[in-house]
């Protein structure tokens, strides 16, 4: 039996090689090195499936494969910084998702980039390859430091790909913003990493010597940590560390208040948006929390904060999605909103729910973006929905798949999104009592449901229904297999993914065992001790309470409420926009419209902050040149002036020389005489 896990590095390295090939030889290869990328991601995908199968067969691994920096003292302890792989149900699942989406994006790019005659394709495919590789490296990371490093690399790739069209003014600025804002989050993440290593002497995710295990032991008194900052109580300190790491999550997963980079990131090519938002960069944040959930579960405050941020972001972003005119803008805010749901789930102790939504969202959001890409091709890169309309007859495949994705996003039964979102809300609901923050998060999450349904179908109707509102819409450019293929795959996934975890059905009908994902993440087929949902539930702070009657009742009520709300939103959208020639109704919102349209003026705020910082810098510069350097130059000029005074003594008249000479001598005599007492 060959050990598949020894091939795990290959999953990461294959896309990396495609990066090297595209970068080095891309311009000599057909399609600008696209095939290399496709082949590489396909290989990674197959390997990932194999890994998944192996894990299903009971295998799991947590292995250090490379020592980055040899052991040395950091004060309280010695540490060794290393790279390794951690393959358990969670990471195996994530591997499959990432590689699949990456593969489809590569294929789609053939249609979106090559067929559209883009320049700089080698750079593009190199970027995709590196992006995929970084994300995969992040997924398999076995310790926080390695995770951070690939986390950062993901950021770099987002910079490169968002700024792909560097000759235009917009993309570079968007790329800069994306990197800067996430870097700001990563600053706290980095402090967190250092703090974890300093506190526990290790950054391992799994195993008895992992930092979640050590923290658990230290909290229940059966162990201790190497170091805590003087005077800080352990629980508090762990909360602080948790929140610090959360900073990185908030940045990458575009949670409030660091979400502002994501809409701008739409400047990147659409397939890149699909990759970033569905499966890689933005997913990384949530995945990180899930990865080290054993640590977060120990600190209720952190969980509550996560839940609240998530719920708030879900609603907040959804409202902004209401009024956008560009196709991708709507999708962008929906992404932010959906990741808010995942955060809510994690904060609510719904570990499985979060992973579930992460999975479904990965598929239907990739689908939506690629669909949007198809539309954009058809519309000759015009994204304004008010110029579209009536496309469903022109591009049926795109329409059907896009519709599936939209239904999933809106959380309509029985599409994937329904199951995952419903479970999130359920988890939040049952854990909410006695947790004000969590309850607030739940309410906002619930409120976001109709809003989501509304803006989703506003988008669908404006794009595909009604009369064409422009010439291009009347005669859209056809798309080829390399566009339809990925859409078809993802479309079907968007429909069926929900089946992997039909908890409500199980609970209502009592069908045991159909909650595959639960059992999967509970290590039923194998996994690593301490990384199971059960364990998390045990150490977590929450206990379930059913408001309405028993469990089943609660399930049904919860599902009914969320579905009902979703349908309401859908219907409103139907009323307003599913008409031959829809008109803008945003005016009805009055002042609120501007606020929403300008994203609550948060970008303005950040710009303002940036300018103030520059002012401070300018002041510092003035101070530096004026005062500090002034002193330096002052010393020299003072010396020279002194020299000029001194030379005046030498006035050329020899008699005065004689006089001064005599004076000097007398002075000496007097000095020595007085000190020596000669004259007594």
């Amino acid at each position: 039996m060959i050990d598949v896990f020894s091939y795990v590095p290959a999953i990461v390295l294959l896309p990396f090689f495609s990066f090297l090939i595209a970068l080095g030889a891309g311009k000599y290869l057909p399609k600008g090195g696209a095939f290399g990328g496709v082949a590489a991601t396909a290989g990674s995908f197959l390997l990932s499936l194999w890994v998944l199968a192996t894990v299903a067969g009971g295998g799991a691994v947590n292995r250090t494969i490379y020592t980055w920096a040899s052991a040395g003292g950091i004060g309280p302890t010695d540490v060794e910084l290393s790279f390794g792989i951690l393959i358990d149900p969670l990471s195996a699942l994530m591997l499959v998702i990432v590689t699949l989406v990456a593969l489809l994006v590569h294929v789609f790019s053939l249609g979106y980039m090559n067929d559209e005659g883009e320049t700089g394709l080698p750079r593009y495919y190199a970027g995709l390859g590196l992006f995929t590789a970084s994300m995969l490296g992040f997924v398999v990371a076995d310790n926080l430091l390695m995770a951070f490093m690939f986390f950062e690399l993901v950021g770099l790739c987002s910079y490169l790909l968002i700024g792909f069209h560097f000759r235009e003014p917009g993309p570079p600025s968007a790329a800069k913003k994306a990197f800067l804002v996430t870097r700001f989050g990563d600053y706290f993440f980095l402090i967190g990493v250092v703090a974890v290593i300093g506190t526990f002497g290790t950054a391992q995710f799994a195993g008895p010597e992992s930092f979640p295990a050590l923290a658990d032991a230290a909290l229940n008194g059966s162990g201790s940590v190497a170091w805590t900052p003087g005077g800080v109580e352990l629980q508090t300190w762990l909360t602080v560390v948790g929140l610090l790491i959360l900073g990185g999550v908030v940045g990458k997963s575009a949670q409030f208040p660091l979400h502002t980079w994501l809409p701008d990131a739409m400047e990147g090519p659409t397939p890149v948006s699909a990759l970033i938002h569905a499966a890689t960069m933005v997913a990384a944040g949530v995945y990180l929390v899930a990865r080290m959930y054993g640590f977060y579960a120990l600190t209720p405050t952190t969980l509550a904060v996560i839940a609240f941020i998530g719920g708030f972001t879900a609603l907040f972003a959804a409202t902004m999605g209401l009024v956008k005119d560009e196709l991708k803008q709507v999708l962008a805010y929906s992404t932010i909103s959906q990741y808010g749901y995942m955060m809510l789930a994690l904060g609510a102790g719904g570990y499985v729910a979060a992973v579930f939504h992460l999975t479904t969202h990965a598929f239907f959001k990739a689908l939506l973006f690629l669909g949007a890409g198809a539309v954009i091709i058809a519309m000759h890169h015009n994204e304004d929905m008010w110029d579209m309309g009536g496309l469903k007859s022109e591009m049926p495949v795109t329409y059907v798949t896009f519709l599936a994705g939209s239904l999933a996003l809106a959380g309509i039964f029985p599409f994937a999104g329904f199951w995952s979102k419903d479970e999130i809300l359920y988890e939040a609901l049952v854990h909410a009592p006695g947790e004000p923050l969590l309850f607030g998060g739940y309410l906002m999450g619930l409120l976001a449901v109709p809003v989501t349904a509304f803006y989703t179908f506003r988008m669908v109707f404006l794009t595909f229904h009604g009369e064409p509102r422009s010439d291009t819409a009347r005669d859209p450019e056809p798309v080829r297999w390399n566009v339809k293929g990925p859409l078809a795959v993802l479309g079907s996934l968007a429909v069926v993914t929900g089946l992997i975890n039909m908890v409500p059905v199980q609970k209502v009908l009592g069908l045991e065992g159909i909650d595959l994902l639960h059992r999967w993440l509970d290590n039923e087929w194998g996994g690593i001790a301490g990384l199971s949902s059960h364990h998390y539930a045990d150490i977590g702070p929450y206990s379930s309470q059913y408001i309405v009657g028993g469990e089943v009742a609660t399930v049904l009520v919860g599902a009914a409420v969320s579905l009902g709300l979703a349908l309401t939103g859908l219907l409103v959208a139907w009323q307003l926009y599913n008409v031959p020639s829809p008109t803008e109704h945003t005016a009805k919102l009055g002042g609120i419209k501007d606020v929403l349209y300008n994203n609550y003026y948060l970008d303005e705020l950040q710009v303002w902050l940036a300018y103030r910082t520059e002012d401070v810098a300018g002041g510092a510069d003035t101070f530096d040149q004026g005062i500090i350097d002034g002193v330096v130059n002052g010393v020299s000029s003072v010396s020279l002036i002194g020299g000029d005074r001194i030379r005046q003594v030498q006035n050329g008249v020899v008699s005065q020389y004689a006089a001064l000479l005599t004076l000097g001598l007398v002075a000496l005599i007097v000095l020595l005489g007085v000190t020596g007492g000669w004259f007594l």
Partner: protein
Amino acid sequence: MILEALIAVAFASALVVLLSPNEWAGRLAFALSLIPFAGSLYLWSGFDGSGNALTGGDIAYQTQIEWLEVGGRSVSWFVGLDGISLPLVVLTTFLVPLAILSAWTPIDSRQSQFYGLMLFMQANLLGVFTALDFFLWFVFWEAVLVPMYFLIGIWGGPRRKYAAIKFFVYTNAASLLMFIGFMSLTFALGDSVSSFALPEITGAIADGGLGSFAGLAPETLAMAAFLAMFLGFAVKVPIVPFHTWLPDAHVEAPTPVSVLLAGVLLKMGTYALLRYNFTMLPEQASALAIPIAAIAVISVIYGAMLALAQKDLKRIVAYSSVSSMGYVILGLVVFTEYGVGGATFQMVAHGLISGLMFMAVGVVYNATHTRMVGDMAGMADRMPVTVGILVAGAFGYMGLPLMAGFAGEFFIFVGSFAAPALPYAPLFTALAMFGIVIVAGYLLSAMQSTLFGPFELATDYEVGPAPFHDVAPLAVLLAAIIVLGVAPDIFFEMIRDAAVPVVEGVSVDG
């Protein structure tokens, strides 16, 4: 005797190039500068030292020959390598050939003198990093000023004369202060030392050989000497507020000189701080831990803020060097293996990265004849490869993982966050870390406005891709940076080994 041969070859080639005709001085210099590089690789391969050279570790390639005797103490030719000096020697011999390559385009007058001086400087730099006798070290230390003065003064920019004299006088003043400090320290040891060999002096101090001197009690004297030496080296590093000579020198100096100035000369200061202040007088260092850490943090943040305010690409990189050196100081003062080792590693890493940045900016300058952010835009359109490497280097500067800069900074942060020797260590570390945000801020802004967007150039030069011999060194540097970032242990292990005795110099309870 290999070490001697290395330095001798460097001096000899300097002389040869100085006398060679201008036409092929550049090529000759490059060829000759490869010899020391090969030599240093050989030294690396055969390196068998362990421990710290000053605290009685096994010194590799050691030679000690009596030179002269003054004031009853002997001065000797005493050179050797340990885990701290070897990486810096390799760095020097590695950077010089590349710097010489990068000079082929911009240097178009008095080439033989230029390259001769470059090689002369290299010889002295090698001396600085290998000398283990105070006076021998001091000779090399001061001798570096002479070629630098000419290199800035003759081939520099418009205000080159001002910059050259400022650098010259300022750093020399610092050396004198340091000299007085160190001499008082030595003579306070009385007859317990019979030479100026640094290991002997370090040992004597460690054994409590310090007596009262010039009316100062031993503790007072040690503290005074520490401060004198610290201030002396602070100018060289440079640490805020003694940094103002640096931007002027960098802006005026021609590209290859900036490369060596940022890449190696600044490291002289931190290297000396490590050798003298932190290895010889650890108690004083840890007694002053808080103020030193404070100025380290100030250097990081203040330097970064200044860089944020600059419009001249070279000035930006210059100020960010000030910022990066702040990390090194922080790493030194925390007295942990990762802190001190990381600081030393950061010297090498920053040497490579800042070298790359200056070189890349220089290549752009060769094409555009301007370094002002406002004067150009969209350079990526005209010189893709150069810009690509420049961007990579910039990310390296921002501490992108798997590049050398991240390794150095991360080692320092890990080493300092929980350091017992420094009160409020987590606070200081967190503050210093914020530098990585600001550095991203100004580098990204500068790149966005100069490299990206639609191409435009204030001047009307025809801009095309840079010649091979301009781009090649950039690529080589980038490769080195990545290698060092992926496998820092190739240096870090030996560095840490040499750092352990330094760390043990301070006894921290708990």
